């Protein structure tokens, strides 16, 4: 399918495909096996200007939108979701500053982020606050010119590796969801440390760690937006990043599908390449159709977001939900098409299947996405009356 990408968009796609081919594919199995953070690849992406893709030109970025980020994430995800998660989580952590930061905050942090000098992470999830953000226990108390943060964030992507953290903490428990606020915390701030590094089923090149705050004092200027805006910051951040998870789904599905087709053309049984058998052909046809449908939805959602539309929540949830469910089905069926070979680590699809599972879980489980979509439909219907 031709999505009529502009010349610049084609350049982004080409460059990311080149990075995937030359720098990611040769090392992805090893990074997975050793659970090693992909620093070398991040450095290449930094010098290729990819960290500045979605950051305005005045802060040293390229001033592109959600759609360009989608293309980049999709290409990287074809090769390795661990690597693309590291890259996409950096964007996730940056959105609170980009969307709600003061001029001072943007000037202080965005140029380094755009240059890929400092990696970013977003800290929302806690032991008792995942789908239910209302369960947040981490607190921030104003004391003179500083906020004092206490609590523990869990399963934070890029935790420990990132230099800049955007973190949600409760500043006024009595106000419920309106009592949360967002803060910028830099690595190395006294009272801020890292807990255990998680061992995961997939995306093992990506680092997932606890953030531990013990009387961590951050300057008052590190508050993003105003007190009480924390959940709104988090929700708008997720609205912006969700399409990227959809793009990861499209990418990993395409990556696995390409492997399955290549294999099915070579593998001979009963005297024929197995791709000649209708059982395989129908699976391949279904996979290709689903991938294309997912891509069309993800691209449409990204372009809608870039149009400046305010109500992006529903469509971005749809894109995340559909594309990541497709990713799980397609990676699973790619393993099936390849049979015993698909199950072996010698081929990349077993990793892709393990990796794909997280897409249905992180940045809002697909069950939560369905809730969000339904809530928006109910709201729209009520308004239409």
């Amino acid at each position: 399918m031709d999505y009529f990408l502009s010349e610049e968009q084609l350049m982004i796609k080409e460059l990311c495909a080149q990075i995937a081919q030359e720098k990611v594919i040769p090392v992805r199995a090893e990074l997975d096996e050793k659970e090693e953070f992909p620093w070398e690849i991040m450095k290449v992406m930094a010098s290729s200007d990819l960290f500045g893709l979605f950051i305005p030109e005045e802060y040293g970025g390229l001033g592109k939108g959600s759609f360009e980020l989608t293309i980049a994430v999709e290409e990287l995800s074809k090769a390795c979701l661990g690597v693309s998660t590291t890259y996409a989580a950096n964007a996730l952590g940056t959105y609170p500053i980009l969307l709600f930061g003061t001029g001072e905050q943007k000037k202080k942090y965005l140029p380094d982020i755009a240059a890929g000098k400092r990696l970013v992470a977003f800290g929302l999830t806690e032991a008792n606050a995942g789908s239910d953000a209302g369960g947040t226990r981490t607190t921030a108390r104003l004391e003179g010119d500083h906020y004092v943060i206490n609590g523990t964030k869990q399963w934070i992507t890029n935790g420990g590796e990132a230099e800049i953290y955007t973190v949600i903490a409760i500043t006024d428990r009595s106000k419920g969801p309106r009592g949360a606020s967002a803060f910028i915390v830099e690595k190395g701030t006294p009272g801020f440390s890292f807990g255990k590094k998680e061992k995961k089923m997939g995306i093992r090149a990506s680092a997932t760690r606890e953030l531990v705050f013990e009387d961590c004092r951050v300057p008052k200027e590190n508050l993003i937006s105003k007190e009480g805006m924390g959940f709104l910051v988090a929700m708008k951040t997720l609205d912006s990043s969700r399409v990227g998870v959809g793009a990861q789904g499209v990418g990993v599905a395409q990556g696995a599908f390409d492997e399955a087709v290549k294999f099915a053309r070579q593998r001979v049984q009963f005297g024929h390449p197995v791709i000649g058998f209708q059982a395989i052909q129908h699976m391949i046809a279904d996979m290709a159709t689903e991938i294309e449908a997912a891509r069309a939805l993800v691209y449409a959602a990204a372009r809608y977001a870039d149009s400046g539309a305010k109500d992006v929540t529903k469509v971005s949830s749809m894109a995340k939900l559909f594309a990541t469910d497709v990713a799980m089905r397609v990676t699973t069926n790619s393993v099936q098409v390849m049979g015993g070979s698909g199950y072996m680590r010698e081929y990349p699809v077993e990793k892709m299947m393990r990796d794909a599972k997280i897409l249905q879980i992180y940045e809002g489980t697909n069950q939560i996405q369905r809730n969000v979509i339904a809530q928006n439909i109910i709201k729209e219907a009520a308004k239409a009356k």
Partner: protein
Amino acid sequence: MKIAVCIKQVPDTAEVRINRETGTLIREGVPSIINPYDTHAIEAALSIREMLGGTVCAVTMGPPQAEASLREAISLGVDEAFLVTGREFAGADTLATACALSGVIKKIGADLIICGKQAIDGDTAQVGPEVAEFLDIPHVSYVKKIIEVNAESIKVERMMDDGSDIVEAGLPALITVVRELNTPRLPSLKGKMNAKKAEIKKMGAAELGLPPEVVGFNGSPTQVKKIFTPGPRGGRKQLEGPLEEQIDALINELLEKKCL
């Protein structure tokens, strides 16, 4: 520091097939790339510029489509690009090519000239040293390490059949480089965008002040007589039997041939 890099656009030989009858490459449908050795020359130039400041320009001779290679060089960070092109250059051997390339370098001036050790299509490894001769400057070929470079001189390690030499040369000088020297960078997005807009300066023999008899076919003392695929080397001997016996036989053979 002003650095010039000589590059060549070549067919991607990883994907090229050979016409068995004529012995020539089948170029149709084969993508063109920057000669891989030249990408190491570009990388060397860019890293010297990062250290010492200055500019890097890329120079090539070729048909109009060779412009694509120069744009690729710009996407990697090269500042300026020159394309020597025109019918008068057709049929050039290494001498006529070196004459044309040195003509551009004389015109733009350079403190250091870096070339890949050879092109993967012709494999002569002559053009670099010949350019240095035309410019009447020192050259060091097969450079695998740049030890030191400053405004006056360059100190390098060059590969030899029996090890390596450390050589220092006063600038201006020319070096040709091997793959071991560095890992070429990937382009950046800003570089790719620049490359699209960049002006590629085109020059013909007249602009370079070169008379017709020194360039192209007329300026080429060598001519291709026949192209063929060399047959396998003879004189091979295959050892057989248990491994220990093979090792003994190999040692005896090497002793007999005075290799050990």
